[in-house]
């Protein structure tokens, strides 16, 4: 054990292989070429900033925020929050089984896993508009369709993040339960979910916050939402009112984040 005869250190890098290098080069080229097209000229930057703060500039027009309609706006925000909570709740509930089926370790069969992954990807890829048409036909205009629109969006989002959180957890406790003879459901319920809870909380509360911020889905099904008000404010150039809405949303976002942090601190 004590023979400290100077040993040669092992090689620094593992060989990457031709495809590895090729892939690396392609990505690098993509990034560099796109960056080259993006760099703003410094003088433009200065002019631009000056322009934003000029008397008719965006920022000048935004100040001071116009809180005169704070009542209806707050109400709308609450309404949006309500739809978002319901939609996220449904979405997350449905996302969980899909996510479980989509993980390497917990899926009953590779074919099932591939199918689950494809379905989750499909939920993400099918545009809002298509969902809107489907839900309008099935549940009609309004908040119910809004809830469903949020739901499908969340299945696609949370399904993926849940699956990834589950794959990242320490396999040790899961193996121990497997060796006990626990069923797949038992392993999920008693080892995987407890381990993923902080991550799930973060994902879920982000999803909630995103549903409140995101207007598109709700607007499409005629469910309103604060996002539509924000859009109207911008369309009519009521920048000061838009700013007030942004500030309210920011308050909500920060509040949700605080809540997320609080729950997670208890869990971690």
């Amino acid at each position: 054990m004590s023979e400290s005869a100077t040993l040669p250190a092992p090689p620094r890098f593992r060989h990457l292989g031709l495809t590895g290098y090729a892939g690396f080069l392609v990505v690098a080229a993509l990034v560099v070429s796109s960056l080259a097209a993006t760099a703003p000229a410094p003088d433009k930057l200065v002019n631009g900033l000056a322009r934003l703060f000029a008397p008719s500039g965006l920022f000048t027009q935004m100040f001071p925020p116009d809180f005169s309609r704070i009542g209806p706006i707050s109400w709308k925000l609450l309404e949006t929050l309500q739809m978002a909570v319901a939609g996220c709740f449904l979405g997350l509930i449905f996302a969980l089984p899909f996510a479980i089926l989509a993980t390497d370790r917990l899926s009953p069969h590779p074919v099932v896993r591939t199918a689950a992954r494809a379905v989750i990807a499909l939920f993400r890829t099918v545009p809002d508009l298509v969902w809107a048409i489907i839900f309008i036909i099935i549940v009609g205009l309004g908040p119910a369709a809004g809830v469903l629109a949020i739901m499908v969006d969340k299945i696609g989002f949370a399904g993926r993040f849940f699956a990834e959180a589950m794959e990242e957890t320490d396999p040790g406790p899961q193996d121990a339960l497997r060796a006990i003879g626990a069923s797949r459901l038992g392993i999920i319920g008693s080892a995987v979910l407890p381990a993923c809870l902080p991550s799930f909380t973060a994902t879920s509360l982000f999803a909630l916050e995103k549903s409140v911020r995101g207007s598109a889905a709700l607007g499409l099904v005629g469910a309103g939402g604060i996002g539509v008000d924000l859009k109207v404010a911008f369309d009519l150039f009521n920048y000061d009112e838009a700013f007030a809405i942004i500030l309210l949303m920011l308050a909500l976002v920060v509040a949700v984040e605080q809540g997320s942090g609080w729950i997670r601190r208890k869990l971690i």
Partner: protein
Amino acid sequence: MNAPVSPVRAEAGSTLVEPVLTVSGLTKSFGTAEVLRGLDFALAPGQSTALIGANGSGKSTLLRCLVRLVEPTSGRVRMLGQEVGALSPRALRRFRARVGIVWQKHNLVPRMSALSNVIHGAQARMAGPQVWGQALAPAPVRAEAMACLARVGLADRALARVDSLSGGQSQRVAIARMLMQRPEFILADEPDASLDPQTGQEVMELLLGLVRQDGLSLLVISHRLEHTLAFSDRILGLAQGRIALDQPTREASVPALRRFFDHEAAA
């Protein structure tokens, strides 16, 4: 140093009864590294067998292969009357339920209480959310889990989160979980590693008691030669991926076992 269970040394390697565990030609490689290179041995039921071997000699890997948590590269394992390699997923689960394992790294579920972790041991018998944690468990299960914790001296820490426990406490939770499983065969990977001398002794007595009084079979890995000698009927030594030592414990001694490790280091 009071040992209520006196380690009676039974006949080692007896093959008159059907072996409870038969390993034949077991090999396991990770990539190019051959860890196990053809193991052959059989264990008689109702015996305590100690497995010794240098660090990295493949003891833990062998344990994992026995219950197919890693698939052996080749070879056969017959355990508790079952051909382990041929079991369907369902049958494998039922088989695993009969084998209790104490892991070297404990492998407790973090963020949960000690009691919840012990209750998980009941998942071999029961299913559903009632055995996912202590909040939903039926009263008898909770009581049994408390009794298991009490057997390892941890009843007072039942509601502590396992990640706040000390090394030795967490080791004992892992043992309690194994007890909760009511196994027929116990595989214990260094159950005494982080225990203080007194507790280590008591835990080994507890395990041997299960063998002597309840007729279970035990395969225990330990680096403490005094435990190996005091609490086993037979000693197997693993070296270079093969069984390099196999003798009844009564024929073994500390210097002899040390020589096994010495010899191994020299090779």
